[in-house]
């Protein structure tokens, strides 16, 4: 494998008495989309949030592009790491344009650069120009999620973290956004980590898959490897569950 974007070393984390990650060591490949798949409570979101310092491991360390995530420099490091969550997490008091461009404005980008990048993203995600001054409450779920992706990519981060961004959408909208997501992979090369409980979404959108079960890595490999050679009943069960579809 080529270079990696995130390296986890000996990561342990517990909430209260419950240990949810048991000394995990693994890395995630750069310039690819990697899906972390697992049931609710398997620790997948926690792993993701360690990459941008929202969650601090009890033991071990996380490095992004070879620099260790620590409290002193994490604010600056986050500018290179996009983040989008289930339910979009748009700021309700800001318009679509303000939501997407807020960070660029705070980073003192020029007006022209902001406008260009904004236009580019709106086109990429097929968002209508009329939405510019609308507030999040008046957008559909799909539109909100697209705006959230635009916001995450505004600063052209080399790494994008996606925490179940599509799981709250209806199946039709989800299919459309999946297609746009694939287009986005083509348009801008970057490392992406997608957390999902849906194995079919993982195989459709990612090149690499990490299956997580009870805080341990059950299987890690390319999509083809996982599909053709599931390591355990758990992995197989994830395929079956995904096949029934869930909203």
């Amino acid at each position: 494998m080529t270079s990696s974007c995130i390296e986890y070393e000996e990561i342990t984390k517990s909430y209260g008495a419950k240990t949810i990650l048991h000394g995990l060591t693994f890395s995630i490949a750069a310039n690819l989309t990697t899906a972390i798949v697992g049931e609710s409570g398997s620790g997948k979101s926690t792993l993701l949030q360690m990459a941008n310092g929202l969650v601090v491991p009890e033991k071990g360390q996380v490095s992004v592009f070879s620099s260790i995530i620590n409290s002193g420099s994490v604010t600056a490091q986050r500018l290179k790491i996009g983040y989008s969550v289930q339910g979009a997490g748009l700021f309700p008091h800001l318009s679509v344009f303000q939501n997407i461009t807020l960070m660029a404005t705070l980073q003192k980008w020029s007006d022209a650069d902001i406008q260009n990048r904004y236009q580019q993203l709106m086109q990429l995600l097929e968002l209508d120009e009329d939405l510019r001054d609308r507030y999040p409450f008046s957008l559909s779920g799909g539109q909100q999620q697209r705006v959230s992706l635009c916001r995450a990519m505004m600063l052209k981060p080399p790494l994008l973290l996606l925490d179940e961004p599509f799981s709250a959408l209806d199946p039709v909208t989800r299919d459309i956004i999946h297609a746009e997501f694939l287009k986005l992979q083509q348009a801008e090369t970057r490392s992406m980590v997608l957390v999902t409980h849906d194995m079919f979404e993982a195989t459709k959108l990612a090149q690499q898959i990490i299956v997580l079960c009870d805080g341990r890595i059950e299987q890690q490999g390319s999509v083809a490897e996982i599909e053709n050679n599931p390591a355990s009943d758990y992995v197989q069960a994830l395929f079956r569950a995904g096949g029934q579809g869930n909203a």
Partner: protein
Amino acid sequence: MPRYITNRFMLVFLLAISLFAQSGLAQQSENPLSITVGSKNFNENYLLAEVLSQLFEHAGYTVDRNFGMSGTLIIYEALRTGEVDVYVEYTGTVAQVILNNNDNPSLEDLNAELLSQGVEMMSSIGFNNTYALTLKRDYANELGISTISELAVQPDIDMGFSIEFLNRSDGWPGLVENYGFTQQPVGMDHGLAYQAIDDGSIDVTDAYSTDGDLDRYGLLILEDNLNFFPRYFGVPLIRSELSVQARTIINSLTGRIDETRMRELNGRVLLDGKSFNEVAVEFLAEEGLVARVDNANASSTGMSVMWSNLWRNTAVHLQLTFIALSLGCAVGLPLGFAIYRSSRLSRAMLYIAGLMQTIPSIALLALFIPLFGIGQTPAIIALFLYSLLPILRSTITALLTIDPVLKRVAEALGMTRVQQLRHVLVPLALPNVLAGVKTAAIISIGTATLAAFIGAGGLGEPIVTGLALNDTSLILQGAIPAACLAILAELLFELLERVLVKPHMLVGQLPT
């Protein structure tokens, strides 16, 4: 007179506190020709204070009228700390309430004790405003009685006394002991007793010997032939550093007003509906103390006086509320932002602020007198403390109820702490915080009416005076504008919300 707080414990407490505060805070009038006249909040005391004030004004003094203070302890502390230079007290109250001396001390003894506190008692104005037993003049004639001893042996007599009189040792229990009463009296509100006597439901009630109502109802005061009731002569209390000139002016009242005269003057206010100002002008002219001509300016028409008072009181009221609320915001908002993350600190602060809220306003104001004197300073501090709870609570609640996903996203996008505050936390908390400040403003406008009890002025002034005089129109002159101010504040904050907050943030739900 026994119309005010006589809680001795309170006095001891206040004095103890004042030891710490000491007289560093006390201030003297710099200008020898300026003087502050104080009064308690009942008819007679207002009137005498106004008489004193006008006497000083005619002698060329600038007079600061600090009228309507609630209770002996408050006004006496004000005198001691130099907030007030002179007011009219009663000898029985000086002995029992101020000096806590029940051994029937002589005037010399009292004066010696007062001097050690920087206070002096002047000669009596003349009247003895003590408790008295009273009944209809006609009925007294019918029974052929004129003394309390004669009343005590009347078998079929119905008596109704104020609750306080029934329980004070210098009231009913003492009467029973000294005069051998065997009848069973009933307790009733003092204001209702006169009406009860008028319609015949009771025959005898307690009264104050200078009560203006006595003449209205044709009542006779029975002679206290065993000299049981303590003496409550009206005496000016002054700060001992007062100049000879000022003392001379005060002494011009010595012996001038006896009980009948005082009753008649009180009646001019209570029964004839004249203002204190008018009656004082009349009195000084009648006594030849001041030529009536001088007073053309003082007796301006009632309406214009009412309006100018209204504006002045409203302005003071707004000033008190505005300063207190600004302080409340200046402290409550940053404090809320600083501590909301720690639930322990938040809880502790809310607990303390809540505790402040439970202290009755009057008690809090009284406690502040030794520390901050009287007037606007303690009033503002009290209002500030009352406004702190709603502001702090709404700020903490607003911050805690922000969708945690939004806080996480703001952090994850790479915003600094300041940026998170400026672009996410503050705008999202704003609607709730504004609601809290609005509540605080309305509470302050209401509570500020009580500030008049310690001479801070404002719309409470006509309310306090009106309560003392049982004058509804005067009460309304404070209550209506105060209510209007509260409504105005409500509208103002609505406007502010409209300017500062997007409409969907006020009514809509946060999208998830």
